[in-house]
């Protein structure tokens, strides 16, 4: 075909088949096929493989057991205190990061919502931690938490009655310390949502409240919070998903230790595969994690559709 001919009818493919693909129902297929093929290879295939592994026994310690299919991994999962301990730690981790991020982000958003001078600068300050890679967050907080030379312990030296400790090695402080690092890294996401949400609250509401002589707290309690409720719901789910997925911060800082005190479900899945070398059981744990995240995604969709149709939602 010459160049001029192609100009005349752009985007045609030769023959009846070509016409079907560029015009008819084949068009949707043509557009979807590349992405579906790729996703099928990099996500679909691994998911199938994970299912197969979870019914098999591919473990370094029991090489002879390979090929005996059954539900044994799932039976083991049901009565495995390590697995349910990891689920509990994941839940605590999610709870901690959600509560911490929302408290920090909401305070920052309320403080900066009506800033006129240094507006961009004040917002940038609360967005910047988001740009820091999780790996870097882990390294920085690891250095700050250091028991001997960390800046946190050195600052605490100046405060009477509080003594520093080895934050990441102490069983009681390891998980909260990781949560704080994660909050620092991800609260800006909530901050963005809160700023947008606060921006969408009509000023008339506050003016009316002022006429009724409502104080700052009453305004917050009876105007700001109710107006933000959809945004808060969206953020809670989003932060839960992010907290549940979180891997590098925990893995790099403690690797799940001390003695499993910070082993969340994702870290346990990883350690089971690459430390214990029990790939089948790791795949089973991975499937449990997928099921949990599916519940979270359904919650997310539910909240999003309600925020779309609901009144006062700004998302």
């Amino acid at each position: 075909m010459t160049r001029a001919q192609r100009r005349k009818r752009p985007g045609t493919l030769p023959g009846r088949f070509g016409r079907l693909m560029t015009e008819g129902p084949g068009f949707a297929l043509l557009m979807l096929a590349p992405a579906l093929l790729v996703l099928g290879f990099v996500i679909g295939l691994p998911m199938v493989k994970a299912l197969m592994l979870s019914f098999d026994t591919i473990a370094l310690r029991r090489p002879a057991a390979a090929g005996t299919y059954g539900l044994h991994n799932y039976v083991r999962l049901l009565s495995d205190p390590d697995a349910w301990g990891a689920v509990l730690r994941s839940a605590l981790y999610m709870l901690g990061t959600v509560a911490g991020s929302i408290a920090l982000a909401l305070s920052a958003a309320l403080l900066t919502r009506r800033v006129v001078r240094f507006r961009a600068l004040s917002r940038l300050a609360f967005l910047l931690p988001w740009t820091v890679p999780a790996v870097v967050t882990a390294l920085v907080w690891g250095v700050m938490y250091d028991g001997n030379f960390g800046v946190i312990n050195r600052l605490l030296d100046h405060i009477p009655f509080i003594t520093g400790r080895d934050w990441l090695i102490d069983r009681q402080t390891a998980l909260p310390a990781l949560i704080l690092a994660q909050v620092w890294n991800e609260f800006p996401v909530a901050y963005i949502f809160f700023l947008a949400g606060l921006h969408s609250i009509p000023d008339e509401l506050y003016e009316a409240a002022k006429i009724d002589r409502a104080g700052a707290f009453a305004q917050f309690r009876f105007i700001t919070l109710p107006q933000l409720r959809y945004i808060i719901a969206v953020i809670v789910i989003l932060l839960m998903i992010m907290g549940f997925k979180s891997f590098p911060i925990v893995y790099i800082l403690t690797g799940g230790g001390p003695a499993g005190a910070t082993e969340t479900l994702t870290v346990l899945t990883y350690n089971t595969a690459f430390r214990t070398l029990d790939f089948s059981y790791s795949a089973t744990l991975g499937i449990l994690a997928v099921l949990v995240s599916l519940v979270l995604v359904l919650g997310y969709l539910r909240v999003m559709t309600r925020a779309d149709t609901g009144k006062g939602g700004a998302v």
Partner: protein
Amino acid sequence: MTSPRRRRLDSVAGQVFKAAGIVALGIAVLFPIYWMAVIALTPTGFSRSLTSLVPAEVTLENFVTLFTERPMLRWLWNSIIVAAASSFLSLAFGTSCGYALSRLRFRGAGLVLILVLATQMMPATSIVVPLYILFRDFGLLDTMQGMVLGHVSLVAPLAIWMAKGFFDSIPADLEGAARIDGCTRLSAYWHVALPLAMPGLAAIFIYGFVTSWHDFLFAKTLINSQALWTAATGISSFRGEYFTLHELQMAAALTFALPVVIVFLVMQRRIVSGALSGSVR
């Protein structure tokens, strides 16, 4: 009732209180970044004897050590290659899918959307373990191609989801006009919708690039040889190796974080609106 003067005093006090709050919270939030820079600029081995919060002596020797004695440049280069390739592939395969999800009515559209969303939101550890086994069988383990494919599984769902958002924001009338002028649907997509979506696609490319750049899990799992490590794996290894040499750790961390921070500063507005449209990480 309170006098106007009293009220003005109240509001001035409130302003001062707020400003103080912003400054205090801002300092607390920015402190880790500041401290990373301080330690990175302190002579090797001297950060433990810092007595104040400002560096006593500033030096670049840690960065010199980083680039001369460790393959930092190599790792950064690997990161760039992998991020560019996986982001480009995701865009090449994902854009048309995003378009279909935005414009076409077909059976199963809702299902595809939910699947894309779900894959974006499930823990990558669930994928990486079976992927490791598969890649071992395919001989893709410890290769750049394998790592690029692994990152595509992270970036492609994001690209599809964001592309759908961008096409949603372009009025369909323009393609309708092109169709009346004799364009097929394919050419209406190729010649009308795609050029209009270009700024959006550029944003997706950068977002995908940053996602891949940040990734630790795939890079750590699918690659073994040090020469193929990405910068994320490289700098994370410093925590084990230089456990007490905080200066080198922080110099590496700063080097790795800086490009992304600069990209963010340049494109702040677009990234923030992208995050609001539901495509967070």
